[in-house]
């Protein structure tokens, strides 16, 4: 673990492992979860990401005090599979890039769908848009690069892949992920508490539904 300076009010905590480490009790997700549970008063904002957690000091707390607290935090282990607790997302697998993903991975279309529905995904971190979760899987079968050209318009509910992550577009937006399907699940609803379905640490299963 390394603490990197991030201006005069924040520290970037760098962990050797990303979300993969969380199940063994490590990684950025395990560290962010430990901060959430311990909630030290020195901590203002926590921004989890792939291999790092950005921590902003609470108002009036000296940065040195924050650094001391952060050095003592130990990442917690998250259960590998939360079973029935996992959020289920029904997906129609008819995405425009399904053939490209099959070609890139050396799998058939059916095998791509199977690989997507067989693993338990976990929300590693948020970003890009309210309600968007970067979902880390259990194996690398579906690791594909982003599309060479971004689309200017990706419909809400599009299910995509990019790099080591899966994701679902919460609303229509531009985007460069490889689209394999679509869902009607509402990922972000301000009238719901909590508004986001996908929060860091939440386990996710995709379930195939026929049109």
């Amino acid at each position: 673990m390394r603490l990197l300076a991030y201006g005069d009010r924040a520290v970037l905590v760098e962990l050797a492992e990303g979300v993969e480490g969380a199940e063994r009790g490590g990684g950025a997700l395990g560290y962010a979860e430990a901060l959430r549970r311990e909630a030290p008063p020195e901590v203002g904002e926590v921004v989890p990401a792939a291999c790092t957690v950005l921590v902003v000091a609470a108002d009036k707390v000296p940065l040195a005090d924050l650094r001391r607290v952060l050095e003592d935090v130990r990442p917690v282990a998250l259960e590998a599979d939360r079973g029935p607790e996992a959020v289920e997302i029904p997906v129609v697998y008819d995405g425009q890039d399904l053939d490209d993903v099959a070609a890139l991975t050396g799998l058939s279309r059916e095998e791509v769908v199977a690989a997507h529905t067989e693993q338990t995904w976990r929300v590693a971190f948020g970003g890009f848009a309210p309600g968007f979760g970067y979902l880390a899987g259990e194996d690398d079968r579906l690791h594909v690069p982003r599309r060479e050209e971004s689309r200017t318009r990706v419909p809400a509910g599009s299910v995509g892949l990019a790099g080591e992550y899966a994701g679902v577009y919460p609303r229509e937006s531009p985007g460069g992920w490889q689209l394999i399907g679509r869902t009607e699940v509402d990922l972000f609803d301000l009238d719901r508490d909590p508004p986001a379905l996908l929060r860091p640490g939440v386990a996710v299963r995709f379930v195939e539904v026929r049109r």
Partner: protein
Amino acid sequence: MTRTLTLHATGPLTTVQDLGRPGYAGIGVGRSGAADRGALRQGNRALGNPEGAAGLEITLGGLDVEVGDEALWLCVTGAVCDLTVDGRGMGSHAPVRVEAGARVRVGSPSVGLRSYLCVRGGVDADLVLGSRSRDLLAGLGPEIDAGTVLPVGEPAGAMPGIDHLPWPRVSADEPVVLRAVRGPRADWVADPDLLTATTWTATDRSNRVGARLDGARFEHARDRQLPSEGAWRGAVQVPPSGQPVLFLADHPVTGGYPVVAVVVVDDVDLAAQVRPGQSLRFRWVEAP
């Protein structure tokens, strides 16, 4: 009797802002809030409001509002601008009592970019995730335009008797100097000191998300892509083009481009007052 402000014109961009929505980065919702947080706080303090009461952030003036059927105390802070009440010139940076039905106009600032119209009692727009701030990147928070009638809250405390507030430290003639701490990924560019060696210009593609800077191009030192990292206002991020972006209030929550410097908190407010075309420089400081 109702306490309201009716918007007749909003200029290039006027938004409702408070001090933002903390605690939602994990679900992709950034902090947002006033770009010049100090200016909003200052206006609120002068009116006896809680520091985080919502006001109007006015970009390059052009605001025309009408007070409802109850008199209100107002205070304009941030970029120094012409303030008129029913056509009569008033000073900004001081509380003014405005009668029911009066027309208040906030002109374009001579120096600086963003002025704040604070009102005693605060702008009482609907809360979204605990804040009234309009986040332009996330698309959250109240949307306002000419014709919008904004409710104004009831005063919470006594008027503190402040009659004049300091002006922002922005000069029209000299480059704005921002203090910055070397960023966590400074070694991902060939020459991080290009930041302090260059006189930069804020481009007209600057907005509440960030100020895009022109003047030199950083050369990336690594071929790999950086895994996404949390971002914060004040971060100077270098996208593949090599042209840096200085993140302001509505910056993305996470991003995959290296952060070569982070402007100290006190100077981010100053950065929010840099107009497109204006020059700025950076000076390295140590992290505390």
